[in-house]
């Protein structure tokens, strides 16, 4: 082996070191989940650098934090309300915490904007990137577990004031769909559906994460 790292090993090292910008970190996280060879490169660097962890001094968190964590994982209130279309009404009613899309400099080739779909008390996050030139919208699961056996995450696009259109189901890896335009006010959302997506073409399951494209 020569003194230079190949690109994948370099990416694994820089992921563990933490120096990569967000789009490349998300790409590395996608590879860790989908590519066992890449995951083992990351594990090897993690094992090498982990002794540095000793330098982190413990700091007490606030006493309420554990209750917050338990409240999120083991809710005791009424079952999560199912929602039906029109989605936009539910969103406007403030049922959900919406994070306004974050515009970032185009760090990926031709990515016009990127956004993160999030939800309150929801471990799942989905990264979206719009490529205006190619007319494509790309999605990848950035964090949180895969959908359980027999279920799928289904993606929806909701033009402002209109009803939701299914974009397909999101499993491991990237989902790319042709989308000509992504004007401000458009909502992107993910629901939990039975395997293969909602059979009716209308969302049946709970809304997990969403974002509204900002007007900035």
């Amino acid at each position, binding site marked *: 082996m020569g*003194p230079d790292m190949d690109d994948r090993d370099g990416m694994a090292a820089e992921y563990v070191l933490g120096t990569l910008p967000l789009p490349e970190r998300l790409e590395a996280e996608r590879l860790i989940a989908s590519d066992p060879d890449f995951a083992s490169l990351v594990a090897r660097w*993690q094992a090498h650098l982990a002794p540095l962890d000793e330098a982190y001094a413990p700091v007490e968190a606030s006493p309420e934090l554990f209750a917050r964590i338990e409240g999120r994982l083991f809710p005791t209130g009424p079952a999560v309300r199912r929602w039906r279309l029109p989605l936009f009404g539910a969103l406007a009613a403030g049922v959900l915490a919406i994070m306004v899309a974050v515009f970032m400099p185009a760090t990926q080739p031709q990515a016009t904007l990127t956004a993160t779909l999030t939800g309150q008390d929801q471990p799942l996050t989905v990264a979206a990137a719009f490529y205006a030139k190619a007319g494509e919208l790309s999605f990848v699961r*950035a964090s949180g577990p895969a959908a359980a056996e027999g279920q799928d995450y289904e993606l929806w696009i909701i033009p402002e004031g209109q009803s939701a259109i299914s974009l397909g189901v999101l499993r491991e890896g990237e989902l790319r769909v042709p989308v000509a335009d992504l004007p401000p006010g458009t909502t992107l959302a993910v629901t939990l559906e039975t395997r293969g997506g909602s059979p009716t073409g209308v969302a049946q399951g709970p809304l997990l994460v969403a974002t509204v494209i900002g007007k900035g």
Partner: protein
Amino acid sequence: MSPREDDPVAEMIGRVARADRAAFRALYSAISAKLFGVAFRILGNRSEAEDAVQEAFTRIWLNARRFDAAKARGMTWAIAITRNHAIDRLRARPAPSEGEDAALRIRDPSPGAEATLIAKGEAGRISDCFATLEPARAEAIRGAYLDGFSYEDLAARHNVPLNTMRSWLRRGLMRLRECLEA
């Protein structure tokens, strides 16, 4: 000997994998201060660090079944989850506004105290290997890992071009690995 006998954190994660909420509580008591220390150092404020720790424990609960005690110590696994999430959050922050010097945004760690800390225990070997690197490069690698400094932060801090910093770090890491695997 089971790999868990000397690793109580791994043993607790094993019980969490079986949805044992008492074990989850015990795990929280045992490691939350360390994980909060990690998130707080990287993110620099308590409220965001608490959000990050909440997310880390959520992932620990959901992914405990994937933890393999034969491959990593429990604390190492939990810290990696926390660090990776905290750094993702840090990178998701908006870029600094025009004219704001990256060097002004970054805190000043005390490398002296750190070097003493990592000279102990399991960290002894990596500390010896760090000593074979040029001091500025060793400090850049430590700053990246422990404080979540980006290439931009490090380039500004060490007053070198971005690409120079990137190749410093890559070469430094290779050297470190050769030393650790020797």
